[in-house]
């Protein structure tokens, strides 16, 4: 399976996620929605590289940190943002909020906000696709914490026993910058020396990828998704991401302000920990720097893409904020698929 996007489209896709998430942080700061939430800043290349390699028949499963995966898969920012604000125009009519966002028409039919909860679901979807002789495969996105849960072991074991077409993408975002080198830091809480030791013990071919290296991720996912599609059997990849410093706090915070594309081109951000992160670990700005340096994209082109995406996200915010709240009666509807009432 080949990569299908060009560099400019990739930058656009990554920037859309970055600007969307920044807007989510702004909305949370303005108390436009209640409750906890999670943003995908610093992991954009993973979702973008996976989703450009997928076909419409494929399914994806994500977690409470789902905005980036759904945007990369093609979800509309308007209805995503409306759902995050709990409005009637959201993809889930205001019933999921940020944590359980799903977009069935894009093959993302159910999002579990339970740690490890989506792995059995994703594995079963792969079994179902195999049973229906579909050309589709499943990609399951989850964090390193999911491997603390027994459900993950059961799911990976089932995938290996049943030989079903699934790619497990473990986004290990627990790694502090100073330990980015391979092998220095497997996870925040697992006693395994390497996360991939776990799927390997269950005979699932597994590898490690660098979440800050967009080109490396593109090659990795094109190859692995091709293998899953060809063999109909599972693969596992641990993507090592360094946590964006704004995620360190209890509530995400735009330390240093909104992302400035000039940070990729010589301007040094503040505070220093953000500067270090941008220099070593930000997949978006590192990719942008490489594209500009190699002449594949000009600064002006990048700025134009950014302006377009900012407009799109501002429009999504406006759409969400001006959307109606759900009718109170909606709370009791849709409990059962048939008839709608208990």
């Amino acid at each position, binding site marked *: 399976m080949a990569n299908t996007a060009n560099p400019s489209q990739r930058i656009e896709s990554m920037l859309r996620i970055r600007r969307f998430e920044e807007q989510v942080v702004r909305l949370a700061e303005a108390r436009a929605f209640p409750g906890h939430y999670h943003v995908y800043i610093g992991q954009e290349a993973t979702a973008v590289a996976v989703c450009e390699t997928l076909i419409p028949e494929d399914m994806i499963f994500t977690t409470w940190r789902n905005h980036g995966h759904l945007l990369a898969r093609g979800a509309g920012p308007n209805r995503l943002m409306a759902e995050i604000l709990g409005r009637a125009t959201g993809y889930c009519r205001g019933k999921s909020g940020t944590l359980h966002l799903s977009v069935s028409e894009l093959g993302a039919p159910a999002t579990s906000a339970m740690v490890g909860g989506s792995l*059995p679901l994703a594995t079963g979807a792969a079994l179902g696709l195999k049973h229906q002789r579909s050309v589709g495969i499943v990609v399951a996105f989850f964090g390193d914490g999911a491997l603390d849960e027994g459900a993950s072991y059961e799911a990976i074991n*089932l995938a290996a026993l049943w030989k079903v077409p699934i790619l497990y993408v473990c986004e290990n975002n627990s790694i502090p910058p100073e330990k980015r080198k391979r092998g220095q830091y497997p996870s925040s809480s697992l006693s395994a020396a390497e996360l991939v030791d776990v799927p390997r013990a269950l005979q699932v071919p597994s590898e490690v990828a660098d979440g800050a290296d967009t080109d490396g991720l593109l090659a990795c996912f094109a190859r692995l998704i091709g293998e899953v599609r060809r063999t109909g059997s599972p693969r596992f990849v641990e993507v090592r991401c360094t946590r964006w410093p704004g995620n360190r706090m209890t509530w995400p915070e735009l330390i240093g302000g909104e992302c400035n594309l000039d940070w990729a081109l010589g301007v040094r951000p503040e505070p220093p920990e953000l500067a270090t992160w941008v220099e070593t670990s930000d997949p978006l700005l590192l990719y942008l720097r490489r594209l500009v340096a190699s002449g594949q994209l000009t600064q002006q082109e990048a700025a134009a893409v950014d302006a377009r995406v900012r407009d799109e996200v501002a429009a999504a915010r406006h759409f969400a904020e001006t959307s109606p709240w759900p009718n109170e009666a909606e709370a009791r509807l849709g409990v059962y698929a048939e008839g709608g009432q208990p």
Partner: protein
Amino acid sequence: MRVNYAQAMARAIREALVADRKVFLIGSTFAGLSVAGRAAFATLFQEFGDRIIPAPISELGLAGAATGAALSGCRPLVDLGAGSFTFQAWAQLVNEAPNIHYMSGGQSRVPVTFYSLIGIRGAGAAQHSHRTQAMLGNVPGLRLLLPASPADAYHLMKWALQESDGPSIYLGHSLLLDDEEEVDFSAPALPIGKARIARNGRDVTIVAHSIMVRRALAAADLLAARHRIEAEVVDMRTLSPLDRETMVRSVAKTGRAVVADESHFSFGAGAELAATLAFEAFGYLKAPVYRAATPDAPIPFSPPLESALVVTPEKFAMAVLAVLRREQA
């Protein structure tokens, strides 16, 4: 045609496998330890080997996988084993499958059927005797199917596999697998969510489900023979949907009710039924509603200890007499 409960289930499963390629099975111990039941399924497994996915001992993974397969467009039936084993699957069974349709704002449908064999089955002791219907009854989004007869073992399975649009749990009973009756499979079935009057009577209503229907019918025979009391027996068939109307209508006629439930007494399925009658049938009641249920103790191993906790037809009959005496007092 004379069939037992296990044969009736196997027949419904076979028909669904023939009718719809999207139906498949995960696991294969539907008949538990019953020899007759296993025989009923043996030919089915032979005929449809490629539609039966072998299952490791992995209830949590299996419950989630079946749910995921339903999300991809299939209609799986997953065997979770004994009622007590469903606790291993709880996170997927109660916190994933029943929430998905609602949480997605109606975007996604989950036509999965979970299967387990509940009940105090003899020698199961504390960890193999659970009746899970009360706990599962507190989970919106999940249908609870509790067949008491071979006819319903067939009809409810057929509904779950061929018609349902959402997650259902089919709670068979270990001690009912060998029960036999004459079933006319071509006769129209009661719709899902409708209770059945299993025996007509004028003096007292016994509201039952699953194995308690059989025991209530035996108790009614005892009461008729020894005390000339005519008990009406209502078989709820499903606890979700819950047919409050049929139950209340019966009590409107008899004025007295015993609610039978193999769950533990406190917070059991019977508590919900009794509360419904206390509120909706208050004006008809001539005596307080009586709950016949398993006492609040784990199930012990030793046969005389186990028997001490089982609600038998004789205990039922005494419960009915107590209700009638209470009225006279």
